């Protein structure tokens, strides 16, 4: 073997090391949703107050579907007031905030709603069907559904005032 070839050995390690270094820029839990841009799956739930709510009935409005759980601390606790503020600010402009409670116990969920004084509709998803329909893999996750019923954005983690405002302004600006 000619003299030069042997140095291939240490050099061959470099691409592997580079790949591992690249790994730092990624978050393994950050899974992009394949549903963005697709129509949201229809659902029919019953809120904790006993009222029915379905996706069809909300057609024509911008819907914020927020998946949460009472045991999801601290993120759900951080975003609950944000959602409540957003609801109060935007409800007159054709926006509905809907909270979907998953993998939870009724009393704990109702206590959560009471503690944060949430006035937007919240419904439990007992069999987890809606959460799977939306490709939810953790809480909290928030989906922004436009007037035509398409999922336009997904936010993983606690939602902030700024994100809420940006998405809602964008979707409200679109014509139906």
């Amino acid at each position, binding site marked *: *073997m000619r003299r030069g070839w*042997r*140095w291939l*050995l*240490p050099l061959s*390690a*470099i691409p*592997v*090391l580079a*790949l*591992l*270094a*690249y*790994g*730092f820029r*990624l978050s*393994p*839990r950050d*899974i*992009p949703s394949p549903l963005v841009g697709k129509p949201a799956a229809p659902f029919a739930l019953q809120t904790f107050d006993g009222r029915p709510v379905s996706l069809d009935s909300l057609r024509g409005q911008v819907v914020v579907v927020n998946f949460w759980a009472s*045991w*999801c*601390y601290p993120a759900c606790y951080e975003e609950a007031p944000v959602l409540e503020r957003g609801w109060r600010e935007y409800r007159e402009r054709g926006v509905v905030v809907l909270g979907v409670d998953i993998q939870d116990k009724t009393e704990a969920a109702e206590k959560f709603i009471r503690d944060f004084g949430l006035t937007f509709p919240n419904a439990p998803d007992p069999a987890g069907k809606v959460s799977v329909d939306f490709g939810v893999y953790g809480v909290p996750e928030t989906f922004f559904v436009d007037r035509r019923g398409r999922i336009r954005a997904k936010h993983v983690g606690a939602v902030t005032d700024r994100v809420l405002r940006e998405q809602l302004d964008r979707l409200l600006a679109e014509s139906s």
Partner: protein
Amino acid sequence: MTPEIGAGAVMVALLLALYGSVAAAAGASTGRTSLLLSAQHAALGVFLLVTAALGLLVYAFLTFDFSVRYVATNTNLGTPFYYRITAVWGALEGSIVLWAWMLALYTLIVVVRHRQNARELYPWVLAVMLGVLAFFLLVMAGPAPVFQRMIPVPNDGRGLNPLLEDTGMITHPVCLYLGFTGFTVPFAFAVAALATGRVGDTWIALTRRWTLVAWYFLSLGLLIGGWWSYHVLGWGGYWAWDPVENAAFMPWLTGTAFLHSVMIQERRRMLKLWNISLVVLTFSLTLFGTFLTRSGVIASVHAFTQGSIGAFFLGFLALVVLTSLALIAWRWDALRAQGELDSVVSRESAFLLNNVFLVASAFTVFFGTVFPLLAEAVRGEKVSVGAPFFNLVNLPLFLALIFLMGVGPLIAWRRASLENLRRNFLAPVVIGIAAAALFRVAGTASALTLLTFGLTVFTATTLGVDFTRATRARLRMGERLGAAMGGLLIRHNRRYGGFVVHIGILVIALGVMGSHAWSVQTETTLKRGETTELAGYKVRFDGLAARQESNHFKVVGTFTVSNHRPNLAVLHPSKKFYPQEQAPIAGVDYRLGLTEDVYLVLGDFARDGSHATIKLQINRLVSWIWVGGVIITLGTVLAILPERRRAG
């Protein structure tokens, strides 16, 4: 004061280790023994300091010293005594302390054992060991400080991760780390060999026992990890091909390959380049494993935390890999001495094939583990590579290895004549096929199971044939049976120790085969008093009870298991609710048997105890895996005994 003293000890240890490493290297290249002696003293100093740091940490845990942040985050007033000790290595920072302590201990042992018998290599060995130690101390001083002060001092701590409150926690990390750190020694010797140009057999002969010990602890650590997974995590399996499990498995594979290929170098003075590369690869994989566990780059059960620590490990890994490979390239000519073989059909070939399959398996596991990264880098896609892939792809490799385990020990060195092949293998082949046929007749339909079983019997028979023949030879010379067998084991302890280890592996293989092929499970909801049935077992739900434990709230179910014997066992699977954890932790209960385990997991339940959902599994032959581990222990002990040529 504790945090400050501890941090100070770590700092001084780091400086000493750095100094010692440089001094040893300087002593090696200039030949000045005063430098070397100084480095030895530094090594001793480092050991004492790290021991003190570890001791201080244990003391802090035992006395609930919440002024140390690490103690406050990993224990609380309710944590039982023994778990307070294991909590020391229960999270990232503490695990590094344990690792560093073991390295320091091994360095000291190297000093004591090898300063006389390895004069030329020893200085470089010490330099490398202290260098690696310095790195881990640097991590302890920098990104993963274990002695941080907590202000204000809380009244109670957060508590240990409940999954870690288990006896497995006491042994699994300790064994694994003993294995990982153990491989530092052969690596240090390899680097010393490269640095001094003495790339012959000396370094291998000196490290044989080190390699065996490290390999053994790694094997034990893996098996205990499997056991812990089985009886704590509640999913009914023992191996999930989780990235961190893979990270420990890869060095095991290459380490096993190394154990075998050194035998060729010992006999035939061949494969120097290959052996040195293998040991560098094995050590690098141990570093890679620790990088994976701690960097958060790939999601896993074990992932400690993210942060800059990943960058540290990757940097060190890069340093080690690039330097070692460059050294190999530098000494290329000396390593590539000519080799000669008489025949393709020989033990040398069998060992070469063994290496091919082991390293191929390691490569497969590696590629599969980092593939999600690659897919995202190249295509921006998120993909998963999980158990189905690894099982499917590794299966043929493992079957080939089982076959080679049977061929290798008996086939002749140099050239195996037809006569030799017939004498050694005809009977095992016939018996293997007959066993598979019998199994088929007994009802097993799966070709895969039959193949596995047949190969296992084949290999077991070859071992039996060899041992019987050798015993008979001794009997003919007038010895009695006991003395003959004992004498064989002691006089040829390396060979027969290896045999016993192989038998252990075969038993594990059968356990894995049985658990995959014949285990059954079901999920059902029972009302109180109702019974469900599976595979001849009846399980009756008797009721639920709830109680408050020292640091959690526990709901326990009572289930009576019967088969042909009524009231065979009463099982108590539970759900534990820890205040600091979001979801309840399932507590499995099981009844182990030699051939069947009854395994019960409690799922949802009604508050009033009127019904409960359970997952019931009847797992077959899983216990054989643990028994195999015991056999491997016996074999390793036998193989590691000093050679006694005159005995028996």
